[in-house]
Each structure stands twice: as structure tokens, then as C-alpha cells.
């Protein structure tokens, strides 16, 4: 139950990056899952292969993810003028290329990232790995930090201004293009931290990005595309639903339950809990 919630929180963190980009520039970034995977590999490479600490590895992983995200934005999404359908298709292509490159470089064997906080802790009669608690804490803190950033700082307010009306924001002296770049960097950083957490809990392999991406699509769609609060609530909801089905029916059915929930939401409220029409 608790461990399912932790997984849900990590997925929520990854989904926050998807929803941020969608809210600001109406782009569904399919490369997001590969950013998760690549940053986990970066941490594995630096932290395990080279033997440096996680505090060196994590910033490097964030830099790698941000670099690839900005490269995708400049080389793929901007020339397509952020057209939602074309960007989606190009993103799939780029994601396939990156994933198979990772297969070729790192091989199919799963690798492990050692826990940043080893050991277990007893919480009300249940044993929990400290690493999972750390992951949950990081996810909650980052979600709150993102909310505070968007609502109480100048760059965050600029992002929301561009989200609400690109032209009007331009007239107020905001450069949308630089806002887009910073949005891509923040979203990539969220993916990188998500990759670090996911890798330290479940291990690292070239396919590890695809399931969180699919999950975050479902979470974002249930919560409403572009809504931070919706993403947080839907992420928690999916995490609980997954762990319940996992204990009652077996883990493989969890995805089918998620889909059933998504279909239910589409019947009742097609735009998602907090979303707006597109």
C-alpha cells in the first residue's frame, strides 16, 4: 500500500514535467520518458562506474536531460512551430531512436543504483526502505516547490502569463521563446530527479522510461492536461489504485484498472478533473 503510493508519487513527479510543457506550449513531449531513462543511466554511470557520490551524479544527470530536452526543442519542436500533432509524431521517432541507442550502448541487462539512504525503518508496524521514504519526500517537496515557483516568482509568473496568452505576454515584454527554454529545462530536471528515484528503487534499464511515460499520460489526462493540482491528485489516486489492485489481483492488472479509470473519466468529464478544453 505505502510502497505503491511511493511509486505513484514518482510517476506524479514525471507527469508534472509532461503537464508543465503541455500547459505552457501545448506540446506533448514524447521524449520525456527517455529523459528519465538517460538520467538514470547517467547517475548509474557516474555514481557506480566512476565511483563518485550521488551529489556529483545528480547535477550531471540533470544537465544531460536538460541538454537533450533543449536540443529537441530547438531542432525538432521549434521548426515544426510547436504544432501539437506533428510534435507528437516527431517525439515518438526521437524517443525510439534514443531508446535503441541506449540498448546499443548500455545493453539490455538491468543495472542497480545503490540506495542513497540504506536501511529500513519501522512505520506503524510496517517496514519501509528508507530510500522509498526519501523518494516520496523528494517528490512532495519538488511538487510544492514547482507550485511556489509558478505562483510567487517572476519567471514562474512569466510562464503562467505565456500559458494564458502568448501574444499578451509578448506585449508585456516577456520573450516566449526563452520561457519555453526554461520550461523545457525545468521539465527535464523533474524527469532527471524522477529517473534517479525510479532507478534507485527499481533498477536501471533501457526500457525503464516507457512505462512511467505511459502512466504519466494517463495521470495527466485524468487530472486534466496542464493542471499542476490535477496532476498531483491524479498521481496520488493512480498510485493508491495501483497498489490496491496490485495486492488484490496482481500487479499486471494494475494498468488495465488505470485504463478503466481513464475511460470512466472520459465518460464523465472528457477534459479531466481540472483541465480545459483544447
Amino acid at each position, binding site marked *: 500500500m505505502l510502497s505503491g503510493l511511493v511509486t505513484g508519487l514518482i510517476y506524479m513527479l514525471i507527469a508534472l514535467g509532461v503537464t508543465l510543457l503541455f500547459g505552457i506550449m501545448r506540446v*506533448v513531449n514524447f521524449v520525456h520518458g527517455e529523459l528519465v531513462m538517460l538520467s538514470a543511466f547517467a547517475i548509474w554511470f557516474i555514481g557506480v562506474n566512476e565511483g563518485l557520490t550521488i551529489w556529483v551524479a545528480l547535477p550531471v544527470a540533470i544537465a544531460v536531460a536538460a541538454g537533450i530536452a533543449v536540443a529537441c526543442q530547438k531542432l*525538432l519542436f521549434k*521548426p*515544426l512551430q510547436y504544432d*501539437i*500533432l*506533428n510534435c*507528437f*509524431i*516527431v517525439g*515518438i*521517432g*526521437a*524517443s*525510439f*531512436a*534514443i*531508446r*535503441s*541507442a541506449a*540498448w*546499443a550502448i548500455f545493453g539490455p541487462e538491468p543495472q542497480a543504483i545503490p540506495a542513497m539512504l540504506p536501511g529500513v525503518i519501522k512505520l506503524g508496524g510496517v517496514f519501509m526502505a528508507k530510500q522509498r521514504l526519501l523518494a516520496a519526500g523528494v517528490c512532495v517537496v519538488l511538487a510544492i516547490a514547482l507550485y511556489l515557483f509558478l505562483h510567487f516568482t517572476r519567471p514562474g509568473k512569466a510562464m503562467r502569463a505565456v500559458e494564458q496568452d502568448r501574444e499578451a505576454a509578448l506585449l508585456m515584454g516577456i520573450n516566449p521563446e526563452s520561457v519555453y527554454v526554461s520550461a523545457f529545462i525545468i521539465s527535464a530536471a523533474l524527469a532527471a530527479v524522477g529517473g534517479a528515484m525510479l532507478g534507485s528503487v527499481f533498477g536501471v534499464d533501457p526500457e525503464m522510461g516507457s512505462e512511467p511515460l*505511459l502512466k504519466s*499520460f*494517463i495521470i495527466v*489526462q485524468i487530472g486534466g*492536461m496542464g493542471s499542476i493540482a490535477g496532476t498531483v491528485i491524479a498521481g496520488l489516486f493512480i498510485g493508491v489504485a495501483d497498489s490496491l489492485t496490485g495486492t488484490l489481483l*496482481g500487479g*499486471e*492488472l494494475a*494498468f*488495465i484498472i*488505470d*485504463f478503466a479509470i*481513464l*475511460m470512466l473519466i*472520459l*465518460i464523465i468529464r*472528457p*477534459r479531466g478533473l481540472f483541465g480545459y478544453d*483544447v
Partner: protein
Amino acid sequence: MMSSNRTTRLTVSLLIVALLALPLAMHNQYFLHVMIVIGINVIMAVSMWLLGITGLISFGQAGFMFIGAMTTALLTKNAGWPFWFALPLSAVAAGLVSAPVGRLSLRVKGVYFFLVTLAFGQVVAGVFAYFEDPFGGWYGIRNIPPPQPAALFGTLDKAAFYYLALGLVVLTCWIIHRISRSWFGTVLWSIREGDLLASSIGVDVPGSKLVAFIVSAFFAGAAGSLYAAYFGYISPLVFTFEYSVNVLVYIVVGGFASMAGPIVGAVVLTLVPELFRVTGKYQMMAFGLIMVGSMMLMPQGIIGAWQQLTTRRGRA
């Protein structure tokens, strides 16, 4: 216009005659095998294209193909039915499943629809993988019997199966061509210009999309049935999201503007990896790069680039 129509008709009939005569000229089993695979991919590409006319892409096509393949496998292997009954029933089964799925998923538009159908395809594979009893789980189903008479289709000679695949391809392409040129087809093209615009001139937008969705699932089911009977083995690892994307790449590379696009794309992109013997993970890399490259450099696809080339030459 009339004469260009006539040349097209002549080219198509010449092409069909050439394809009919092909096994006589090149009786190479590997070659025939590649041609049959191309045929299955062409049916998938054309079926996806029909819904693509409206600007929607169903990333769950592999799921409908899987439903068709599973229906054929269960009917011919477990129930002992002949393939010739199982084939239409498989297509109908995929169509039946697609009706409620389409009814719900078409409530959302654009990228939302992509994501819902994507999830649907994963769910189909997940369900078939979870229930081992009839569906064989992750191991899939082996030894699916070939079509009757087994003496003709079950032997090592693939010529009979080649003609079966060719017949299905021609039938599918003809039906979908007729649909796309019919009154209903013009309705679909009008939806591409915008839902609101189409509904303002009295088009039943959700209903038309739903019909196109069901027809496209129907032919995907038929392709799946053909796949199951030909390979004799199906598993959740075959009908993946990656396969749906491959089919999309056929259309993107070929071009959306006419039905020749998906056909050309499917033929070229099935042949090229075979020619270079690109397999496994590098095939996915090649597909990804081709997809990015053609979106960036050739957004209208091969057919669009060809038309641009010929009209420019015509004007000069």
C-alpha cells in the same frame, strides 16, 4: 482530369497483372515471404490511413490486429473452424470491440485521442498476456493451423498464400479507395479541416469519425487474421505499440494526401530493412530516425514530394 484518371486506372491494372504473374517469374520462397509481409503491412497502413483522413491517428491499431489474430487462433486451433469462416469473424470481432472503444475515445480530440488509443493498445496486449488459459499469456499461441486445403497452404511453397494475401490487399485497397472517394469520404476530408467547420455545414462529426474508426479496426482485424494464419504463432510481443508506430511511419513517409501514400510507404519501409538486413534494436533506431527525418524534411511524404516535383516540371 479524365485522362489522368484513365492512366491511373491503367497503371493499377498493369500493376495487379504484374503482381499476379510474379510467382511465375520469381519463384523464390524468401521473396514470396517478404511480399506476404508487405501485404499485411499494406492492409494495416491503408486501414490506419482511412481514419487518418479526419486528422486522427489510432495508436491502438496493433491492438485491433491482435484481437483479429486472437479470434482466428482460437477459432481455428481450439474450435477447429476453417480459416475461411474465421477470417471474416476476426474482422467483425475487431469491429465489434472498436465500437464502444471508439464511442468513448472519440469524446476527446487530437493528442488526447492519440493517448487514449495508445493506452487501449497496451490494454489489449495486457489482457491477452494476463489470461493464460485461452490466450496463452506472454508465450502466445503456437501451431495455429494454416488455411484449408492444408495441402495447398500448409506446404513449404508460399505461392498459394501469396495469392491469398494479394487478394486481400486488393480487396481492402479497393474498398477503402471507394470509401475515401464516396460521399462519406468527402465528409471525412471535411472533418480534417476542422470539427467546428464541418459541423457548421451539417456534418455529423462524431458519427462519421466513429464509422471510420470501426471500418479501420475491421480491416486491422482482417490483417491480424492473415498474420495468425500465415505465421502460425502470435504473442503479445508481436502486436505492440511499436508496431502501431511502424504503421504510422509508413503513412508519414508515404504521405497522407492520397491512398498511394500508405501503400508506397509500407512497401518501401518493409523492403528497405530486408534489403539491408537491419534487424532488432537497430531497426527501431532506423525507424525512429526515418520518422524524424521525413517529418522535418518531407512533411508531405514521398507522394507529396513526387507530386510537387512533377507539377513544378509541368509548369516549367
